[in-house]
């Protein structure tokens, strides 16, 4: 229990209109636990209740039924909030502040001050590649720059739990890659990360645990490798094998396994290709 950062037990949320008539059942009786030190991906199609679940975990909306615990406490407890960083689905920054002021503001809200806050701000601006625009107003930023600013703001208090609602939305592939690297780096430092996404490739790259939401229910949940590995299939990779040798190996394997053997060429991922091409052009 102690190494469980977030736990949901039978949580439901029904949105109601002004007259208290139910409008949508966004989340329907889900239970899950986010172990400490994991990168937990909450996946699902649009409208499946990912953001709603996150808002309940943060205590921004109250569940209609069920129990939510954040660090073993009710979500809006002061010392739970001190250990939390949140990146909302839409960045929601103050357009009239500069990137630096935005980070200083969030740092101050989180209880930092003085020299510590200034240093933390400067290092985060560098980490998120915003140092050169640190004193420009956020309102003039591109979507990706604003997203990175919001991410930096979420990180400002060195949280133990980072809740990211679609962290890569609006980012170009290079920005996406940078965010993924940042997530991996944070995870290696022991930060627990709970993220939602419907970009499966991204989640596959960084997550250690996955839960798939559909229609407000959890359709699948567990460690990524367990969920994804086809344990009955084996893959070999070899360089520069001649067609004749391929034929020989294939028939040998077919004889051994007694089933069909598939031979193909792996293609580089578009992300790698894109990154390499842009790097070369620059």
């Amino acid at each position, binding site marked *: 229990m102690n190494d469980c950062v977030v736990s949901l037990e039978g949580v439901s949320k029904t949105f109601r209109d002004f007259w208290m008539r139910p409008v949508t059942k966004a989340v329907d009786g889900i239970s899950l636990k986010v172990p400490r030190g994991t990168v937990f991906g909450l996946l699902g199609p649009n409208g499946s209740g990912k*953001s709603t679940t996150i*808002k309940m975990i*943060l*205590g*921004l*909306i109250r569940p209609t039924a069920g129990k939510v615990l954040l660090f073993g406490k009710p979500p*809006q407890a*002061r*010392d739970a*909030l*001190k250990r*939390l960083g*949140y990146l*909302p689905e*839409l960045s*929601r920054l*103050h357009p*009239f*502040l500069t990137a630096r*002021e935005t980070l*200083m*503001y*969030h740092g*101050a*809200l*989180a*209880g930092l001050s003085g020299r510590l806050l200034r240093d933390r701000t400067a290092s985060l601006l560098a980490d998120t590649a915003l140092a050169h625009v640190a004193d420009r107003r956020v309102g003039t930023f591109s979507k990706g720059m604003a997203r990175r600013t919001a991410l930096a703001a979420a990180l400002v208090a060195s949280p133990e739990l980072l809740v990211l609602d679609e962290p890569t939305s609006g980012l170009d592939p290079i920005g996406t890659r940078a965010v993924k690297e940042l997530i991996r780096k944070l995870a290696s430092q022991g930060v627990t990360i709970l993220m939602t996404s419907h970009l499966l490739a991204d989640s596959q790259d960084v997550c250690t645990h996955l839960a798939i939401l559909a229609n407000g229910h959890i359709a699948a949940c567990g460690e990524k490798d367990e969920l994804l590995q086809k344990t009955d299939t084996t893959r070999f990779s070899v360089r520069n094998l001649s067609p004749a040798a391929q034929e020989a190996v294939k028939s040998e394997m077919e004889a051994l396994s007694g089933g069909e053997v598939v031979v193909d060429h792996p293609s580089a991922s578009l992300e790698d290709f894109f990154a390499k091409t842009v790097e070369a052009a620059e």
Partner: protein
Amino acid sequence: MRASFLVAWRYLARGGAVPILLCATALLHWLLPGLVRTDGSAEAVRELTIYLSLAAVYALLLIVSLVSAASLTASERDAKRFAIARTRPVCMASVMAGKWCAPMLAAGLALAVSAIWLLHGVAHENSRYMLRPGHGDLYAMAESEIDAYLAAPSTPEALKTMDRKRVLSHMVARELERKKVLAPGETVKWNFDALAQRKVPCTLQIRVANEYGLKTDFRGKVKFGGECVQFTNTTSRIIEVALPAAAGGEVEFTNESPVAIYYSPYRDVALLVDGGTFAANLLRTCVQIWATIGVVTALGLFMGAAVSRNVAVFAGVAMIVASLAAPQIVEAQNDLAKARLPDRIALGMTRLVAAATSQVMAPAPVDDLASRLRQEDGVLERQVAVDIAVICPILLLLAASIARRRDLP
């Protein structure tokens, strides 16, 4: 609190509210002296200059504070940023308090500009306390009159069922407004109990009129503590007679004009006692205005938290207009006692609005400063304390609780 103050201040400064406010204040003071026209006396020019410039700044502050406070919270609410603040370990009330400080700093700067200009731009005249002559308990007098009337056998039965409270307050109001006549050669005595202890020089002030309200040559003498002072007055309807320091509070006034003098013993007679420098009075006035603006700012924050920006601004302006109109409507319709129920409900509501907003809408401190009046001790302190320590916190707490609730992400 400091963080949210800084953000709010940047919003106002970069959004243009602060520069516009300060420029408009400076422009007002630069233009006004050229616009002031009076019948000539330096005192009248001085009075009008002070009144117009401070009243204009006050009106400006009223609108700017309400609108900018409303848009401060409404912009946060419309962009759903309160939710982000709620994921931080801060309490919403302190966020609101920080936001409140920003328009208040702007208002303070505008008032400071105004005060500095007034200190340099107009002649300094010490302020004065105003003491009214003592009189018996007007309510008790009215009560006994009614009792006598009811007891009389000639009083018709139908009249005995009258609404006693209403008649009472009507009688007292009438008594306060009633003019007395002082015929030529006649003498009247007033008792200024509050003066009896202080041995200070003072000024007797009487606002007078003759039968036709024309300008005439008023003459007379004032006896005070054994001394006798003669006066003549041809320029103004306000007679001011300087009196020496003396023990005792009894003043005798004799009309030596050829015409009768009309005056109200409650409203038109006063003894003026030195009340400190102009600068001190100016400071007190500015603090009082600032506290009132504090209430308006807190109200604006509350409205912005409750409804969206455009609705809040529109409602704010509508409220200002309604509170400007309310006292006039009440005065014009005061005799609707026997009107239909809907009219009476409407009038009651208008009365309520007028009463609730009277402090904001009729800036008495400005009036007092212009006419060199120093309020009684404790009045200002009480008002400022109630505004800043009671009303503002209540409104801010309400705003905070609404911001927590309304801002569903």
